[in-house]
């Protein structure tokens, strides 16, 4: 069966420090991968998605970047964190088919709670 792992579960960082959140998927190959942020108040904001190694699409210009160095590894980074980067970060994957990927059900990790002080 497929599993998705995110770590760490919680993180407290000072303003201006760097960030690296990692997400890995097991039990599937060549998935589509996604990073979301969820601020207080519930809505999820799509940050990045990737359809393959080294292929990253950004949905919202911001202080963050993403990389996909391996097929099932997705990394969210920042060089200098801002207070506004606080939130709940979620990684997800979906099966890649010939159809529009946005119609494929996504499978989420348990998230990382990031607090910026």
């Amino acid at each position, binding site marked *: 069966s497929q599993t998705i792992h995110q770590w760490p579960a919680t993180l407290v960082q000072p303003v201006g420090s760097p960030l690296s959140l990692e997400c890995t998927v097991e039990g599937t190959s060549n998935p589509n991968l*996604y990073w*979301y942020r969820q601020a207080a*108040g*519930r*809505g*999820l*904001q*799509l940050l990045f*998605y990737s359809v393959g190694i080294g292929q990253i699409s950004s949905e919202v210009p911001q202080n963050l970047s993403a990389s996909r160095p391996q097929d099932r590894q997705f990394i969210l980074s920042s060089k200098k964190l801002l207070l506004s980067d606080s939130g*709940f970060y*979620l990684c*997800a994957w979906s099966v890649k088919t010939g*159809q*529009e990927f*946005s*119609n494929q*059900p*996504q*499978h*989420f*990790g*348990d*998230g990382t*709670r990031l607090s910026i002080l």
Partner: protein
Amino acid sequence: LAKTTQPISMDSYEGQEVNITCSHNNIATNDYITWYQQFPSQGPRFIIQGYKTKVTNEVASLFIPAVRKSSTLSLPRVSLSDTAVYYCLVGKLIFGQGTELSVKP
């Protein structure tokens, strides 16, 4: 870009059927409708997906009228553990504010 509108919150009691409606007036021809459930401090969990008419699985049913401008998620005989936020997605990966369902004893 299909935008969805759902009620912000709903209350129910254990054993009742709950219907959550989502409006998506701008749905595109090739868009599917997908529902997710999210508990606090967890990632959303896929519940059900459909394109038209009715879809049923072991958890819920999804009713989609022919014009597809709205859809209804039906949860039969809810329990306390169904208390969660429910999101409706159409096409592009945009999660709205969702519907916070509270099930009371």
